[in-house]
Protein backbone atom coordinates (compact mmCIF):
# COMPACT_ATOMS: atom_id res chain seq x y z
CA UNK A 1 0.00 0.00 0.00
CA UNK A 2 2.80 2.41 0.92
CA UNK A 3 4.40 1.74 -2.47
CA UNK A 4 1.10 2.56 -4.20
CA UNK A 5 0.74 5.81 -2.25
CA UNK A 6 4.34 6.75 -2.97
CA UNK A 7 3.94 6.04 -6.70
CA UNK A 8 0.77 8.16 -6.98
CA UNK A 9 2.41 10.97 -5.01
CA UNK A 10 5.44 10.81 -7.30
CA UNK A 11 3.23 10.98 -10.40
CA UNK A 12 1.40 13.98 -8.89
CA UNK A 13 4.68 15.76 -8.21
CA UNK A 14 5.94 14.98 -11.73
CA UNK A 15 2.75 16.40 -13.28
CA UNK A 16 2.96 19.53 -11.10
CA UNK A 17 6.65 19.99 -11.90
CA UNK A 18 6.15 19.53 -15.65
CA UNK A 19 3.25 21.99 -15.75
CA UNK A 20 5.22 24.42 -13.59
CA UNK A 21 8.17 24.31 -16.00
CA UNK A 22 5.93 24.87 -19.05
CA UNK A 23 3.81 27.58 -17.39
CA UNK A 24 6.75 29.51 -15.96
CA UNK A 25 8.84 29.21 -19.11
CA UNK A 26 5.96 30.52 -21.24
CA UNK A 27 5.01 33.34 -18.86
CA UNK A 28 8.59 34.53 -18.30
CA UNK A 29 9.31 34.29 -22.02
CA UNK A 30 6.12 36.29 -22.64
CA UNK A 31 7.12 39.10 -20.31
CA UNK A 32 10.62 39.11 -21.83
CA UNK A 33 9.17 39.31 -25.35
CA UNK A 34 6.94 42.21 -24.31
CA UNK A 35 9.95 44.12 -23.01
CA UNK A 36 11.96 43.28 -26.11
CA UNK A 37 9.17 44.73 -28.23
CA UNK A 38 9.23 47.92 -26.18
CA UNK A 39 5.81 47.13 -24.74
CA UNK A 40 4.63 46.28 -21.24
CA UNK A 41 1.91 44.20 -19.65
CA UNK A 42 -0.43 47.17 -19.67
CA UNK A 43 -0.09 47.73 -23.44
CA UNK A 44 -3.57 47.54 -25.01
CA UNK A 45 -5.05 47.41 -21.52
CA UNK A 46 -7.45 50.23 -22.30
CA UNK A 47 -7.69 49.64 -26.04
CA UNK A 48 -10.73 50.84 -27.97
CA UNK A 49 -12.19 48.60 -30.65
CA UNK A 50 -13.63 50.95 -33.19
CA UNK A 51 -11.26 52.04 -35.98
CA UNK A 52 -8.94 49.15 -36.94
CA UNK A 53 -7.68 50.85 -40.09
CA UNK A 54 -6.46 54.09 -38.56
CA UNK A 55 -2.87 54.65 -39.66
CA UNK A 56 -2.84 51.48 -41.79
CA UNK A 57 0.13 51.28 -44.14
CA UNK A 58 -2.06 49.61 -46.83
CA UNK A 59 0.94 47.49 -47.71
CA UNK A 60 -1.10 44.30 -48.17
CA UNK A 61 -4.49 43.42 -49.58
CA UNK A 62 -6.50 41.96 -46.71
CA UNK A 63 -9.48 39.63 -47.04
CA UNK A 64 -11.57 39.31 -43.89
CA UNK A 65 -13.48 36.01 -43.71
CA UNK A 66 -16.44 35.84 -41.32
CA UNK A 67 -18.20 32.48 -41.11
CA UNK A 68 -21.71 32.99 -39.75
CA UNK A 69 -24.54 30.83 -38.54
CA UNK A 70 -27.45 32.79 -37.10
CA UNK A 71 -25.40 35.84 -36.18
CA UNK A 72 -27.95 38.60 -36.71
CA UNK A 73 -27.40 39.77 -33.14
CA UNK A 74 -23.78 40.79 -33.79
CA UNK A 75 -22.86 40.72 -37.49
CA UNK A 76 -23.90 44.29 -38.39
CA UNK A 77 -21.34 46.27 -36.34
CA UNK A 78 -18.61 43.72 -37.22
CA UNK A 79 -18.83 44.12 -41.01
CA UNK A 80 -19.44 47.82 -40.61
CA UNK A 81 -16.16 48.22 -38.67
CA UNK A 82 -14.27 46.23 -41.32
CA UNK A 83 -15.59 48.27 -44.22
CA UNK A 84 -13.18 51.17 -43.86
CA UNK A 85 -9.94 49.70 -45.20
CA UNK A 86 -8.22 51.05 -48.30
CA UNK A 87 -7.21 47.60 -49.53
CA UNK A 88 -9.60 45.32 -47.67
CA UNK A 89 -12.48 43.08 -48.64
CA UNK A 90 -14.91 41.39 -46.29
CA UNK A 91 -16.38 38.02 -47.16
CA UNK A 92 -19.26 36.90 -44.99
CA UNK A 93 -20.13 33.21 -45.27
CA UNK A 94 -23.74 32.69 -44.31
CA UNK A 95 -23.63 29.00 -43.45
CA UNK A 96 -27.34 28.28 -43.75
CA UNK A 97 -28.66 30.76 -41.17
CA UNK A 98 -32.34 30.79 -40.29
CA UNK A 99 -32.24 34.45 -39.41
CA UNK A 100 -31.43 37.72 -41.19
CA UNK A 101 -27.63 37.40 -40.94
CA UNK A 102 -27.01 37.69 -44.69
CA UNK A 103 -29.30 40.67 -45.21
CA UNK A 104 -27.85 42.58 -42.27
CA UNK A 105 -24.28 41.85 -43.42
CA UNK A 106 -25.01 43.10 -46.94
CA UNK A 107 -26.64 46.23 -45.63
CA UNK A 108 -23.97 47.06 -43.04
CA UNK A 109 -20.96 46.09 -45.14
CA UNK A 110 -21.52 48.11 -48.29
CA UNK A 111 -19.53 47.79 -51.50
CA UNK A 112 -16.47 46.09 -50.04
CA UNK A 113 -18.49 43.23 -48.53
CA UNK A 114 -19.39 40.02 -50.32
CA UNK A 115 -21.90 37.60 -48.83
CA UNK A 116 -21.67 33.94 -49.76
CA UNK A 117 -24.86 32.00 -49.07
CA UNK A 118 -24.45 28.31 -48.36
CA UNK A 119 -27.50 26.12 -48.26
CA UNK A 120 -28.16 22.71 -46.78
CA UNK A 121 -27.07 20.01 -47.31
CA UNK A 122 -23.72 21.75 -48.01
CA UNK A 123 -24.09 24.25 -45.17
CA UNK A 124 -23.54 23.69 -41.45
CA UNK A 125 -20.69 21.25 -42.03
CA UNK A 126 -18.41 23.05 -39.58
CA UNK A 127 -16.35 26.22 -39.51
CA UNK A 128 -13.54 24.73 -41.59
CA UNK A 129 -15.89 23.95 -44.48
CA UNK A 130 -17.35 27.48 -44.36
CA UNK A 131 -13.86 29.02 -44.40
CA UNK A 132 -12.78 26.81 -47.30
CA UNK A 133 -15.80 28.02 -49.27
CA UNK A 134 -14.71 31.60 -48.64
CA UNK A 135 -11.12 30.72 -49.54
CA UNK A 136 -12.06 29.74 -53.08
CA UNK A 137 -13.77 33.13 -53.44
CA UNK A 138 -10.59 34.83 -52.20
CA UNK A 139 -8.54 33.01 -54.84
CA UNK A 140 -10.99 34.05 -57.56
CA UNK A 141 -10.99 37.69 -56.43
CA UNK A 142 -7.20 37.84 -56.18
CA UNK A 143 -6.89 36.48 -59.71
CA UNK A 144 -9.62 38.76 -61.04
CA UNK A 145 -8.04 41.83 -59.46
CA UNK A 146 -4.53 40.79 -60.55
CA UNK A 147 -3.25 41.15 -56.98
CA UNK A 148 0.17 39.85 -56.01
CA UNK A 149 -0.52 36.71 -53.89
CA UNK A 150 2.66 37.44 -51.93
CA UNK A 151 1.06 40.67 -50.74
CA UNK A 152 -2.33 39.22 -49.80
CA UNK A 153 -3.38 38.35 -46.26
CA UNK A 154 -6.43 36.44 -45.08
CA UNK A 155 -7.95 37.26 -41.71
CA UNK A 156 -10.51 35.05 -40.01
CA UNK A 157 -12.87 36.93 -37.72
CA UNK A 158 -15.70 35.78 -35.55
CA UNK A 159 -19.06 37.38 -36.25
CA UNK A 160 -18.74 39.26 -32.97
CA UNK A 161 -15.04 40.16 -33.38
CA UNK A 162 -13.75 43.73 -33.33
CA UNK A 163 -10.16 44.74 -34.03
CA UNK A 164 -8.49 47.35 -31.85
CA UNK A 165 -7.87 50.85 -33.13
CA UNK A 166 -4.92 50.92 -35.48
CA UNK A 167 -4.64 47.11 -35.44
CA UNK A 168 -3.70 46.85 -39.11
CA UNK A 169 -0.82 49.28 -38.67
CA UNK A 170 0.77 46.81 -36.23
CA UNK A 171 -0.15 43.53 -37.92
CA UNK A 172 0.79 44.23 -41.53
CA UNK A 173 4.47 45.02 -40.79
CA UNK A 174 4.85 41.58 -39.18
CA UNK A 175 4.33 40.04 -42.62
CA UNK A 176 7.20 42.01 -44.14
CA UNK A 177 9.30 39.18 -42.70
CA UNK A 178 8.98 36.55 -45.45
CA UNK A 179 9.25 33.73 -42.91
CA UNK A 180 6.07 34.79 -41.12
CA UNK A 181 3.08 32.78 -42.31
CA UNK A 182 0.51 33.75 -39.71
CA UNK A 183 -0.28 35.97 -36.78
CA UNK A 184 -2.79 35.76 -33.98
CA UNK A 185 -4.04 38.66 -31.90
CA UNK A 186 -4.63 38.57 -28.16
CA UNK A 187 -8.31 38.28 -27.27
CA UNK A 188 -10.31 40.51 -24.95
CA UNK A 189 -13.78 39.67 -23.67
CA UNK A 190 -16.09 42.59 -24.42
CA UNK A 191 -18.86 41.76 -21.97
CA UNK A 192 -16.44 40.97 -19.16
CA UNK A 193 -18.45 43.01 -16.68
CA UNK A 194 -21.55 40.90 -17.30
CA UNK A 195 -20.98 38.19 -14.70
CA UNK A 196 -18.37 35.97 -13.05
CA UNK A 197 -18.06 33.66 -16.06
CA UNK A 198 -17.42 36.40 -18.60
CA UNK A 199 -14.91 38.00 -16.23
CA UNK A 200 -13.14 34.67 -15.81
CA UNK A 201 -12.94 34.21 -19.59
CA UNK A 202 -11.41 37.68 -19.85
CA UNK A 203 -8.89 36.73 -17.15
CA UNK A 204 -7.96 33.55 -19.02
CA UNK A 205 -7.62 35.21 -22.42
CA UNK A 206 -6.11 38.53 -21.39
CA UNK A 207 -3.88 37.43 -18.54
CA UNK A 208 -2.60 33.90 -19.02
CA UNK A 209 -3.26 33.09 -22.67
CA UNK A 210 -2.09 36.42 -24.07
CA UNK A 211 1.16 36.48 -22.10
CA UNK A 212 2.04 32.87 -22.91
CA UNK A 213 1.26 33.62 -26.57
CA UNK A 214 3.79 36.45 -26.48
CA UNK A 215 6.25 33.92 -25.05
CA UNK A 216 5.64 31.60 -27.96
CA UNK A 217 7.03 34.24 -30.29
CA UNK A 218 10.44 32.96 -29.20
CA UNK A 219 9.79 29.68 -30.98
CA UNK A 220 7.54 31.10 -33.71
CA UNK A 221 4.72 28.84 -32.58
CA UNK A 222 2.01 31.29 -31.56
CA UNK A 223 -1.21 29.32 -31.65
CA UNK A 224 -3.88 30.47 -34.07
CA UNK A 225 -7.41 31.09 -32.83
CA UNK A 226 -10.69 31.54 -34.61
CA UNK A 227 -10.84 35.31 -34.17
CA UNK A 228 -8.17 37.80 -35.25
CA UNK A 229 -6.28 35.09 -37.16
CA UNK A 230 -4.12 36.52 -39.97
CA UNK A 231 -2.41 34.28 -42.52
CA UNK A 232 -0.44 34.82 -45.68
CA UNK A 233 -2.28 33.72 -48.82
CA UNK A 234 0.77 31.95 -50.22
CA UNK A 235 1.12 29.97 -46.98
CA UNK A 236 -2.52 28.88 -47.20
CA UNK A 237 -2.18 27.96 -50.86
CA UNK A 238 0.59 25.52 -49.98
CA UNK A 239 -2.03 23.57 -48.04
CA UNK A 240 -4.23 23.06 -51.11
CA UNK A 241 -7.66 24.34 -51.96
CA UNK A 242 -9.03 23.56 -48.51
CA UNK A 243 -6.50 24.81 -45.96
CA UNK A 244 -8.88 24.53 -43.00
CA UNK A 245 -9.54 21.02 -41.77
CA UNK A 246 -12.81 19.53 -40.55
CA UNK A 247 -11.38 19.42 -37.02
CA UNK A 248 -13.36 20.96 -34.17
CA UNK A 249 -10.37 23.28 -33.70
CA UNK A 250 -9.56 23.99 -37.33
CA UNK A 251 -7.50 26.99 -36.20
CA UNK A 252 -5.10 24.82 -34.17
CA UNK A 253 -4.87 22.35 -37.05
CA UNK A 254 -3.99 25.18 -39.42
CA UNK A 255 -1.28 26.41 -37.04
CA UNK A 256 0.36 22.97 -36.94
CA UNK A 257 0.18 22.66 -40.73
CA UNK A 258 1.82 26.06 -41.22
CA UNK A 259 4.55 25.26 -38.69
CA UNK A 260 5.11 21.91 -40.41
CA UNK A 261 5.62 23.80 -43.67
CA UNK A 262 8.35 25.91 -42.09
CA UNK A 263 6.38 29.12 -41.42
CA UNK A 264 6.76 31.23 -38.30
CA UNK A 265 3.61 32.20 -36.43
CA UNK A 266 3.68 35.61 -34.74
CA UNK A 267 1.71 38.00 -32.62
CA UNK A 268 1.99 41.62 -31.57
CA UNK A 269 1.43 43.28 -28.20
CA UNK A 270 0.16 46.44 -29.90
CA UNK A 271 -3.10 45.09 -31.31
CA UNK A 272 -5.90 42.89 -30.04
CA UNK A 273 -9.36 41.67 -30.88
CA UNK A 274 -12.39 41.61 -28.65
CA UNK A 275 -15.37 39.32 -28.70
CA UNK A 276 -18.37 38.25 -26.67
CA UNK A 277 -17.79 35.95 -23.75
CA UNK A 278 -20.20 33.12 -23.12
CA UNK A 279 -22.63 34.18 -20.42
CA UNK A 280 -24.10 30.88 -19.21
CA UNK A 281 -22.36 27.92 -17.67
CA UNK A 282 -24.12 25.42 -19.92
CA UNK A 283 -22.96 27.22 -23.08
CA UNK A 284 -19.47 27.59 -21.68
CA UNK A 285 -19.25 23.85 -21.02
CA UNK A 286 -20.40 23.11 -24.58
CA UNK A 287 -17.86 25.56 -26.04
CA UNK A 288 -14.94 24.39 -23.93
CA UNK A 289 -15.75 20.71 -24.48
CA UNK A 290 -15.57 21.37 -28.23
CA UNK A 291 -12.21 23.10 -27.80
CA UNK A 292 -10.92 20.24 -25.67
CA UNK A 293 -12.06 17.67 -28.19
CA UNK A 294 -10.34 19.50 -31.02
CA UNK A 295 -7.19 20.01 -28.95
CA UNK A 296 -7.10 16.38 -27.84
CA UNK A 297 -7.69 15.15 -31.40
CA UNK A 298 -4.83 17.35 -32.60
CA UNK A 299 -2.61 15.48 -30.16
CA UNK A 300 -2.16 12.75 -32.73
CA UNK A 301 -0.16 15.21 -34.83
CA UNK A 302 2.67 15.20 -32.27
CA UNK A 303 4.30 12.32 -34.12
CA UNK A 304 4.12 14.27 -37.37
CA UNK A 305 5.70 17.32 -35.73
CA UNK A 306 8.38 15.28 -33.97
CA UNK A 307 9.45 13.43 -37.12
CA UNK A 308 9.45 16.50 -39.38
CA UNK A 309 13.09 17.50 -39.98
CA UNK A 310 12.00 20.96 -41.18
CA UNK A 311 10.82 21.89 -37.69
CA UNK A 312 13.61 23.07 -35.37
CA UNK A 313 13.92 21.44 -31.94
CA UNK A 314 12.55 24.35 -29.94
CA UNK A 315 9.44 24.60 -32.10
CA UNK A 316 8.84 20.86 -32.01
CA UNK A 317 9.15 20.78 -28.23
CA UNK A 318 6.85 23.75 -27.69
CA UNK A 319 4.18 22.49 -30.11
CA UNK A 320 4.36 19.00 -28.58
CA UNK A 321 4.05 20.39 -25.06
CA UNK A 322 1.07 22.49 -26.08
CA UNK A 323 -0.66 19.58 -27.81
CA UNK A 324 0.02 17.35 -24.80
CA UNK A 325 -1.62 19.67 -22.28
CA UNK A 326 -5.03 17.94 -22.13
CA UNK A 327 -3.49 14.46 -22.11
CA UNK A 328 -0.58 15.05 -19.75
CA UNK A 329 -1.98 17.73 -17.47
CA UNK A 330 -5.75 18.21 -17.52
CA UNK A 331 -6.95 14.60 -17.52
CA UNK A 332 -4.39 13.24 -15.02
CA UNK A 333 -4.72 16.34 -12.86
CA UNK A 334 -8.49 15.83 -12.57
CA UNK A 335 -7.65 12.70 -10.56
CA UNK A 336 -4.43 13.82 -8.91
CA UNK A 337 -6.02 17.07 -7.72
CA UNK A 338 -8.48 15.10 -5.60
CA UNK A 339 -5.74 12.75 -4.47
CA UNK A 340 -3.66 15.73 -3.37
CA UNK A 341 -6.63 17.29 -1.57
CA UNK A 342 -7.39 14.00 0.19
CA UNK A 343 -3.75 13.63 1.20
CA UNK A 344 -3.75 17.17 2.55
CA UNK A 345 -6.82 16.46 4.67
CA UNK A 346 -5.91 12.95 5.80
CA UNK A 347 -2.33 13.90 6.64
CA UNK A 348 -3.25 17.31 8.02
CA UNK A 349 -1.58 16.57 11.36
CA UNK A 350 1.74 15.91 9.63
CA UNK A 351 1.30 18.51 6.88
CA UNK A 352 0.53 21.29 9.33
CA UNK A 353 2.60 20.02 12.24
CA UNK A 354 4.44 23.33 12.26
CA UNK A 355 1.30 25.12 13.50
CA UNK A 356 2.14 24.67 17.16
CA UNK A 357 1.17 28.18 18.32
CA UNK A 358 -0.94 31.07 17.00
CA UNK A 359 2.20 32.87 15.81
CA UNK A 360 3.66 29.85 14.06
CA UNK A 361 0.24 29.09 12.55
CA UNK A 362 -0.02 32.65 11.23
CA UNK A 363 3.51 32.95 9.90
CA UNK A 364 3.64 29.37 8.65
CA UNK A 365 0.19 29.69 7.11
CA UNK A 366 1.21 32.86 5.28
CA UNK A 367 4.34 31.21 3.90
CA UNK A 368 2.37 28.07 3.00
CA UNK A 369 -0.14 30.20 1.10
CA UNK A 370 2.54 32.23 -0.71
CA UNK A 371 4.28 29.10 -1.97
CA UNK A 372 1.25 26.92 -2.67
CA UNK A 373 -0.69 29.66 -4.43
CA UNK A 374 2.34 31.25 -6.13
CA UNK A 375 0.98 30.72 -9.68
CA UNK A 376 -2.37 32.21 -8.61
CA UNK A 377 -0.64 35.23 -7.08
CA UNK A 378 1.48 35.62 -10.20
CA UNK A 379 -1.54 35.61 -12.55
CA UNK A 380 -3.41 37.97 -10.21
CA UNK A 381 -0.63 40.53 -10.53
CA UNK A 382 -0.39 39.99 -14.29
CA UNK A 383 -4.14 40.51 -14.77
CA UNK A 384 -4.12 43.69 -12.70
CA UNK A 385 -1.17 45.02 -14.67
CA UNK A 386 -2.69 44.04 -18.00
CA UNK A 387 -5.62 46.34 -17.28
CA UNK A 388 -5.24 48.80 -14.41
CA UNK A 389 -9.01 49.35 -14.44
CA UNK A 390 -9.38 45.86 -13.00
CA UNK A 391 -9.39 46.40 -9.25
CA UNK A 392 -7.33 44.28 -6.90
CA UNK A 393 -10.36 42.46 -5.43
CA UNK A 394 -11.46 41.34 -8.90
CA UNK A 395 -7.92 40.37 -9.89
CA UNK A 396 -7.44 38.39 -6.66
CA UNK A 397 -10.79 36.65 -7.13
CA UNK A 398 -9.95 35.67 -10.70
CA UNK A 399 -6.43 34.55 -9.82
CA UNK A 400 -7.76 32.20 -7.17
CA UNK A 401 -10.86 31.08 -9.04
CA UNK A 402 -8.96 28.13 -10.45
CA UNK A 403 -9.79 26.22 -7.27
CA UNK A 404 -13.40 26.13 -8.49
CA UNK A 405 -12.90 26.62 -12.23
CA UNK A 406 -10.59 23.60 -12.36
CA UNK A 407 -13.82 21.65 -12.42
CA UNK A 408 -14.86 23.30 -15.67
CA UNK A 409 -11.67 21.93 -17.24
CA UNK A 410 -12.19 18.51 -15.68
CA UNK A 411 -15.80 18.22 -16.88
CA UNK A 412 -14.97 19.47 -20.37
CA UNK A 413 -11.83 17.32 -20.78
CA UNK A 414 -13.62 14.15 -19.70
CA UNK A 415 -16.71 15.09 -21.71
CA UNK A 416 -14.50 15.54 -24.77
CA UNK A 417 -12.82 12.19 -24.15
CA UNK A 418 -16.18 10.44 -23.91
CA UNK A 419 -17.31 12.06 -27.15
CA UNK A 420 -14.09 10.93 -28.83
CA UNK A 421 -14.55 7.38 -27.62
CA UNK A 422 -18.13 7.39 -28.86
CA UNK A 423 -17.04 8.81 -32.22
CA UNK A 424 -19.12 11.96 -31.86
CA UNK A 425 -17.61 14.87 -33.76
CA UNK A 426 -20.65 17.14 -34.13
CA UNK A 427 -20.20 20.90 -34.07
CA UNK A 428 -22.01 22.74 -31.26
CA UNK A 429 -21.78 26.35 -32.26
CA UNK A 430 -21.54 29.08 -29.62
CA UNK A 431 -24.70 31.18 -29.51
CA UNK A 432 -24.33 34.99 -29.33
CA UNK A 433 -26.45 37.44 -27.43
CA UNK A 434 -27.74 40.83 -28.51
CA UNK A 435 -25.53 43.64 -27.25
CA UNK A 436 -26.41 47.20 -26.35
CA UNK A 437 -25.38 49.54 -29.17
CA UNK A 438 -22.94 51.56 -27.07
CA UNK A 439 -19.44 50.12 -26.80
CA UNK A 440 -18.40 49.32 -23.25
CA UNK A 441 -15.44 51.17 -21.87
Amino acid sequence: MSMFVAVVNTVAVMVIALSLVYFLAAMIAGIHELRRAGASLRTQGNAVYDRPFSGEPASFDVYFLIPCLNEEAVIGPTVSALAGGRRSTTIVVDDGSDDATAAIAEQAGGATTTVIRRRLPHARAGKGAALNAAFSTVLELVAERAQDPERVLVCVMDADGRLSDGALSHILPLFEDPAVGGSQLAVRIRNRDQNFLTRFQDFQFWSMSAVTQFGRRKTGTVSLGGNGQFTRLTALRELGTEPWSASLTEDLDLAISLIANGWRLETTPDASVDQQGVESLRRLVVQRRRWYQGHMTAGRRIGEVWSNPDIPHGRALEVSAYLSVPWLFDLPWSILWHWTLATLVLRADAQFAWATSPVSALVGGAIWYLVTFAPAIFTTIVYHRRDRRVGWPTAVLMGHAFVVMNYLSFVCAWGALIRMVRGRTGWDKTTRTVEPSASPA
Partner: protein
Amino acid sequence: MTRGAVAGGAATGRTIRYAIAGLLLACAVALVAGEQIGRSVESSIARWLLHTVSGMEVLGMHASTVPAVVFRSGNLRWNVLEITLECAIALTLAGLLVIGAALVCTSRCSPGRVLLAMAAGTSLLVLVNQVRIVMLALVLAHGGVGPFEWAHSFAGSVVSLAGLAGTLFVVFTLVIRPGAVPGRDTRTRSRQEAHA
Protein backbone atom coordinates in the same frame (compact mmCIF):
# COMPACT_ATOMS: atom_id res chain seq x y z
CA MET B 1 26.54 5.59 -50.34
CA THR B 2 23.96 3.17 -51.69
CA ARG B 3 20.29 3.23 -50.67
CA GLY B 4 20.79 -0.17 -49.03
CA ALA B 5 23.68 1.13 -46.95
CA VAL B 6 21.62 4.14 -45.82
CA ALA B 7 18.69 1.88 -44.88
CA GLY B 8 21.07 -0.42 -43.05
CA GLY B 9 22.59 2.49 -41.14
CA ALA B 10 19.13 3.74 -40.16
CA ALA B 11 18.15 0.27 -38.95
CA THR B 12 21.32 0.04 -36.87
CA GLY B 13 20.68 3.49 -35.43
CA ARG B 14 17.12 2.46 -34.53
CA THR B 15 18.37 -0.71 -32.88
CA ILE B 16 20.86 1.28 -30.80
CA ARG B 17 18.13 3.71 -29.75
CA TYR B 18 15.78 0.92 -28.71
CA ALA B 19 18.60 -0.80 -26.85
CA ILE B 20 19.36 2.40 -24.90
CA ALA B 21 15.64 2.91 -24.23
CA GLY B 22 15.41 -0.67 -22.95
CA LEU B 23 18.43 -0.07 -20.73
CA LEU B 24 16.89 3.10 -19.27
CA LEU B 25 13.59 1.30 -18.65
CA ALA B 26 15.42 -1.59 -17.01
CA CYS B 27 17.20 0.90 -14.75
CA ALA B 28 13.84 2.46 -13.87
CA VAL B 29 12.39 -0.95 -12.95
CA ALA B 30 15.51 -1.82 -10.95
CA LEU B 31 15.24 1.47 -9.04
CA VAL B 32 11.66 0.69 -8.02
CA ALA B 33 12.31 -2.97 -7.25
CA GLY B 34 15.49 -2.25 -5.31
CA GLU B 35 14.36 0.98 -3.71
CA GLN B 36 15.62 -0.23 -0.29
CA ILE B 37 19.17 -0.42 -1.64
CA GLY B 38 18.76 3.05 -3.14
CA ARG B 39 17.65 4.44 0.21
CA SER B 40 20.69 2.85 1.89
CA VAL B 41 22.98 4.47 -0.65
CA GLU B 42 21.27 7.84 -0.18
CA SER B 43 21.50 7.62 3.60
CA SER B 44 25.22 6.72 3.34
CA ILE B 45 25.92 9.77 1.19
CA ALA B 46 23.85 11.95 3.56
CA ARG B 47 25.81 10.69 6.59
CA TRP B 48 29.10 11.58 4.95
CA LEU B 49 27.80 14.95 3.77
CA LEU B 50 26.33 15.86 7.15
CA HIS B 51 29.55 14.97 8.94
CA THR B 52 31.61 16.93 6.40
CA VAL B 53 29.38 20.01 6.53
CA SER B 54 28.63 20.19 10.26
CA GLY B 55 31.31 18.10 11.91
CA MET B 56 28.59 16.39 13.93
CA GLU B 57 29.11 12.87 15.15
CA VAL B 58 27.38 10.50 12.72
CA LEU B 59 26.94 6.76 13.20
CA GLY B 60 27.43 4.21 10.44
CA MET B 61 24.89 2.06 8.64
CA HIS B 62 24.88 -0.59 11.38
CA ALA B 63 23.29 1.87 13.84
CA SER B 64 19.84 1.48 12.35
CA THR B 65 17.82 -1.43 10.98
CA VAL B 66 16.25 0.89 8.36
CA PRO B 67 17.99 3.30 5.97
CA ALA B 68 18.57 6.32 8.21
CA VAL B 69 20.93 9.09 9.23
CA VAL B 70 21.81 8.78 12.92
CA PHE B 71 23.63 11.79 14.34
CA ARG B 72 24.32 13.51 17.64
CA SER B 73 23.47 17.18 17.92
CA GLY B 74 24.94 19.89 20.12
CA ASN B 75 22.80 18.95 23.10
CA LEU B 76 24.37 15.48 22.92
CA ARG B 77 21.00 13.96 22.04
CA TRP B 78 20.96 11.26 19.38
CA ASN B 79 18.63 11.87 16.43
CA VAL B 80 17.43 9.44 13.77
CA LEU B 81 16.26 10.63 10.36
CA GLU B 82 14.66 7.70 8.60
CA ILE B 83 14.84 7.81 4.82
CA THR B 84 11.40 6.55 3.80
CA LEU B 85 10.30 5.64 0.30
CA GLU B 86 8.79 9.10 -0.21
CA CYS B 87 11.91 10.81 1.17
CA ALA B 88 14.10 9.00 -1.35
CA ILE B 89 14.48 9.80 -5.03
CA ALA B 90 14.12 6.28 -6.43
CA LEU B 91 10.60 6.77 -7.79
CA THR B 92 11.25 10.27 -9.15
CA LEU B 93 14.44 9.07 -10.78
CA ALA B 94 12.55 6.13 -12.30
CA GLY B 95 10.05 8.61 -13.77
CA LEU B 96 12.90 10.67 -15.24
CA LEU B 97 14.42 7.58 -16.84
CA VAL B 98 11.06 6.68 -18.41
CA ILE B 99 10.98 10.17 -19.97
CA GLY B 100 14.54 9.60 -21.18
CA ALA B 101 13.55 6.24 -22.70
CA ALA B 102 10.70 7.90 -24.59
CA LEU B 103 12.98 10.68 -25.85
CA VAL B 104 15.75 8.39 -27.04
CA CYS B 105 13.29 6.43 -29.19
CA THR B 106 12.69 9.49 -31.40
CA SER B 107 15.06 10.17 -34.25
CA ARG B 108 15.07 13.88 -33.33
CA CYS B 109 17.04 13.33 -30.11
CA SER B 110 20.65 12.26 -30.19
CA PRO B 111 21.18 9.23 -27.88
CA GLY B 112 24.36 10.84 -26.61
CA ARG B 113 22.54 14.00 -25.56
CA VAL B 114 19.77 12.00 -23.93
CA LEU B 115 22.32 10.04 -21.91
CA LEU B 116 24.09 13.29 -21.01
CA ALA B 117 20.76 14.79 -19.93
CA MET B 118 19.93 11.70 -17.87
CA ALA B 119 23.32 11.88 -16.17
CA ALA B 120 22.86 15.58 -15.42
CA GLY B 121 19.27 15.04 -14.28
CA THR B 122 20.24 12.16 -12.00
CA SER B 123 23.07 14.18 -10.49
CA LEU B 124 20.79 17.14 -9.88
CA LEU B 125 18.08 15.03 -8.27
CA VAL B 126 20.60 13.29 -5.99
CA LEU B 127 22.19 16.62 -5.10
CA VAL B 128 18.88 18.35 -4.32
CA ASN B 129 17.71 15.46 -2.15
CA GLN B 130 21.01 15.39 -0.28
CA VAL B 131 20.76 19.11 0.35
CA ARG B 132 17.21 18.57 1.62
CA ILE B 133 18.22 15.74 3.97
CA VAL B 134 21.20 17.66 5.37
CA MET B 135 19.03 20.78 5.76
CA LEU B 136 16.48 18.74 7.72
CA ALA B 137 19.20 17.25 9.90
CA LEU B 138 20.63 20.69 10.69
CA VAL B 139 17.18 22.08 11.48
CA LEU B 140 16.51 19.14 13.81
CA ALA B 141 19.91 19.49 15.45
CA HIS B 142 19.75 23.23 16.02
CA GLY B 143 16.03 23.99 16.14
CA GLY B 144 14.42 20.95 17.67
CA VAL B 145 11.28 19.07 16.68
CA GLY B 146 8.96 22.06 16.04
CA PRO B 147 11.03 23.75 13.33
CA PHE B 148 11.91 20.32 11.96
CA GLU B 149 8.21 19.52 11.43
CA TRP B 150 7.86 22.77 9.50
CA ALA B 151 10.99 22.16 7.47
CA HIS B 152 10.05 18.55 6.77
CA SER B 153 6.43 18.98 5.76
CA PHE B 154 6.72 22.30 3.99
CA ALA B 155 10.18 23.59 3.13
CA GLY B 156 11.35 20.11 2.18
CA SER B 157 8.45 19.68 -0.24
CA VAL B 158 9.17 23.06 -1.81
CA VAL B 159 12.85 22.22 -2.23
CA SER B 160 11.92 18.86 -3.79
CA LEU B 161 9.40 20.40 -6.20
CA ALA B 162 11.71 23.23 -7.19
CA GLY B 163 14.56 20.76 -7.62
CA LEU B 164 12.47 18.50 -9.83
CA ALA B 165 11.20 21.41 -11.91
CA GLY B 166 14.76 22.68 -12.34
CA THR B 167 15.95 19.19 -13.24
CA LEU B 168 13.26 18.80 -15.91
CA PHE B 169 14.16 22.20 -17.33
CA VAL B 170 17.84 21.24 -17.54
CA VAL B 171 17.02 17.83 -19.06
CA PHE B 172 14.82 19.29 -21.81
CA THR B 173 17.30 22.08 -22.49
CA LEU B 174 20.11 19.55 -22.89
CA VAL B 175 18.12 17.13 -25.02
CA ILE B 176 16.40 19.72 -27.19
CA ARG B 177 19.01 22.40 -27.41
CA PRO B 178 17.49 25.72 -28.46
CA GLY B 179 17.85 27.15 -31.93
CA ALA B 180 17.56 25.78 -35.42
CA VAL B 181 19.03 22.46 -36.39
CA PRO B 182 21.96 22.87 -38.77
CA GLY B 183 20.89 21.78 -42.23
CA ARG B 184 17.25 21.91 -41.27
CA ASP B 185 14.47 24.48 -41.55
CA THR B 186 15.65 24.99 -45.12
CA ARG B 187 12.26 26.23 -46.28
CA THR B 188 12.34 29.23 -43.98
CA ARG B 189 15.86 30.04 -45.04
CA SER B 190 15.11 29.76 -48.74
CA ARG B 191 12.12 32.08 -48.29
CA GLN B 192 14.30 34.68 -46.63
CA GLU B 193 16.91 34.34 -49.36
CA ALA B 194 14.25 34.66 -52.04
CA HIS B 195 13.13 37.94 -50.52
CA ALA B 196 16.64 39.25 -49.94
